[in-house]
């Protein structure tokens, strides 16, 4: 030891000789509270109420929710937003490749159709495919994932392998192959597309659900419910599922955007919706012929597509933040 540390040593070895002051704070400074008092002043808050309170203050959520409301309204009542009939019969070839003009704010396509009207009327097929694919994926993936995660064992082993097989097939590639089959090629409607996208889209939700369910199924409150006499399946429905919903909702919202993109991609490739159905994918495909001379008919449906997809992804992000279990109180 150096001399300096030696100077400190005697002090350290004889703490008993040092006087330690007995300090007592003024009683009035820290009034005693009743041990473990219940706060009765605030309104009760459930997880969802709390999430809603957080969301209301988030610009990300407000913007995306507004955009989604507009998109849904447009797809339900396109006639309210566009006075012009965009069907091919109503197009006037005289307006072919026309720039913005009175009554045609976004110009016209090569066929002389109004671009604005086509964008408005194309919304419905995109939203239909996106929404119903998501619902289908949630049903199939949710059930498969919940059963696999909750029961484990051989149920999990079998379902997980099936899941892996489908997971290995890329969504778009699988859809391209299936759409070539005569039975699908002959009936190309929005519903065929939904069916095919669900077939290849469910594994992702199944995985997320399985993970969320496994996390919750070992929680004490599930054991508590079981020992109260709640049946195994009852505990899954009443306790496990409601507590695993948050991550599933987030992923579903984000994948809704992906399904809209998938619909447009397939239509663009000419194997999605038939040209007779108005959709952004079809319009983009039709407009690429005149891309150099008149890029506007391609640009506007592409912008509409981007904004719709972006708003769903933003909504998913906002929901993820609001439903994050780590951010919950205490």
């Amino acid at each position, binding site marked *: 030891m*150096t001399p300096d540390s030696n100077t400190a*040593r005697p002090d*350290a070895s004889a*703490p008993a000789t040092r006087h330690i002051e007995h300090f007592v*704070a003024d009683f009035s400074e820290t009034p005693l509270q009743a041990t473990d008092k219940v706060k009765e002043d605030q309104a009760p808050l459930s997880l969802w109420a709390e999430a809603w309170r957080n969301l209301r203050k988030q610009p990300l959520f407000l913007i995306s929710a507004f955009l989604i409301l507009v998109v849904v309204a447009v797809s339900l009542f396109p006639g309210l937003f566009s006075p012009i009939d965009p069907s091919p019969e109503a197009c006037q070839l005289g307006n072919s490749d026309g720039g913005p003009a009175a009554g045609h704010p976004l110009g016209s396509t090569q066929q002389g159709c109004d671009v604005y009207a086509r964008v408005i009327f194309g919304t419905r097929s995109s939203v239909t495919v996106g929404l119903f694919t998501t619902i289908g994926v949630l049903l199939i993936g949710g059930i498969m994932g919940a059963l696999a995660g909750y029961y484990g064992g051989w149920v999990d082993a079998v379902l997980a392998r099936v899941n892996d097989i489908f997971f290995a097939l890329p969504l778009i590639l699988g859809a391209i192959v299936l759409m070539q089959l005569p039975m699908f090629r002959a009936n190309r409607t929005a519903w065929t597309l939904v069916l095919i996208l669900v077939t290849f889209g469910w594994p992702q939700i199944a995985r997320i659900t399985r993970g969320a369910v496994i996390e919750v199924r070992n929680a004490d409150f599930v054991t508590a419910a079981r020992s109260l006499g709640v049946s195994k399946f009852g505990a899954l429905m009443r306790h496990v599922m409601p507590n695993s919903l948050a991550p599933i909702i987030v992923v579903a919202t984000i994948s809704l955007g992906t399904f809209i993109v998938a619909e447009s991609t397939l239509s663009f490739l000419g194997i999605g919706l038939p040209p007779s159905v108005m959709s952004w994918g079809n319009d983009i495909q039709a407009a690429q012929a005149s891309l150099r001379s008149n890029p506007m008919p391609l640009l506007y449906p592409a912008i509409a597509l981007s904004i719709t997809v972006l708003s769903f992804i933003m909504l998913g992000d906002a929901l993820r933040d609001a439903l994050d279990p780590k951010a919950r109180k205490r």
Partner: protein
Amino acid sequence: MKGEAVNAPVEIREEGTAAQRPLLEIRDLAISFKTSGGEVNAVRNAHLTVMPGETVAIVGESGSGKSTTALAAIGLLPSNGAVSGGQILFDGEDISHASEKRMIELRGNSIGMVPQDPMSNLNPVWKIGYQVRETLKANGLPDGPDDVAKVLSQAGLPDARRRAKQYPHEFSGGMRQRALIAIGLSCQPRLLIADEPTSALDVTVQRQILDHLDKMTTELGTAVLLITHDLGLAAERADKVVVMYRGQVVESGPSLELLQNPQHPYTQRLVASAPSLASRRIQAAKEPGVESDDLLAPAEDVVVEPSMPEDVLRIENLKKVFKLRSGLGRSTDFTAVDDVSFSVKRGTTTAIVGESGSGKSTVAQMVLNLLQPTSGRIVFDGVDTSTLNSKEIFAFRRRVQPIFQDPYGSLDPMYNIFRTIEEPLRTHKIGDKASREKKVRELLDQVALPQSTMQRYPNELSGGQRQRVAIARALALDPEVIICDEAVSALDVLVQAQVLNLLADLQSRLGLTYLFITHDLAVVRQIADHVCVMEKGKLVETGSTDDVFDSPQQDYTKALLNAIPGARLMLPPEVA
């Protein structure tokens, strides 16, 4: 010694006054956090001094600001927290707003830290030796394999050279904590901040670790700032105890004096509820059937005949073997519970005590019929529970109810309190909506929660309140036996005392039988009539609480009793 090179330049400054000057002095410290709900003052008017070589303990319940104060001293407050007033003087230098560069210089070689949770504070992907070397390297000390081994062996790890090549998951909790202590002390700091260093460990391991920490810091002359929730432990280990309550220091002084002569009402309350060895069985439920003379009227419809001390639960040669998977297709047997027999008399409390891995929770799971025993019988009220069919199990569930350890995990966060307590009634189809609501209100009264709690969600309640909700839920079906699996272990001392009193009171009023699973012998003393001590799956000692505590027969029981912090302190009887 390699530490001198580091210590010398720091101590040379103003060496004349070094002996008298406090090593760490906190003056009127205020710390505030920015949260979504505005600014929160976590600490106000905190002041404490640590002299060189002195051990000072900060005691307080969770949320009292004890950890925050200590973290501020080493400059590791979370990013939304800041020192908003006062000073932190380390060896005369104000470090409350020191630059990050200066703090990095101080950390490690002047101020060391031993964190709370040994399970999460070691990086699982790096070998132990690498993590020690990292610290040595960061402080410019020699970091060869010999130096690493030396640091580890000083912390009491045998065969340090081989241990340094292992990963954290190959270490037990106690060994990990030793590794963390090795890291904290590797640069021979002058002040060591130990934040609940042993609260995650078994009592016997806790004692070994603290003894070793004592020895090391005395040898090195290191001052220790010990943060703990356990008053007994603080008084036993520290020269001086600082009591914090709601962000303020309410009392500080020499540890023994503080314990014997607490002045502040909060300290008095704390000393009164500290579960030390001197405490006795909570009296309310000593004799079932004898009505307690408190003002709460005993429930009329429960008739407890004093003349039926029959065994409500009998456990015979219980054995549970788990098959552990070890590689492809192979499995090894692990005997979690080995030939355990005991019986529980109606209206009494039997405690199963043991350290982690002793198999006590497995016994509880089997008694609850959530796990099938490998062999042996569990006889409840004369019937072997393994022979029950599903309908009889449903009926059995009404009579035997659990209360779990973790009050944060045992309530469904999506259910409000009314639905939580109503669920057992609904599941067993008891009463209609109105009568169920009436019952829930009664139950909330019984556990001393305001009826307005019904509309709240678990995330709005504290740990103790949640545990009371769990008790209310367990009581909803008027069970005869309640299995408490570490039911008070996660609670602060005062809240723990409150819940234990509630349990004792309910026992006397409703004639309940408790099977109390715990690692905490001090709690056993307060609540149990009979004790079963388990070690590694085997029952080593059984007997009445008084017998086991006053004259333990087995070495293991003696070791457990000796390891209770504060057991060696002599408290005046009127305080305890």
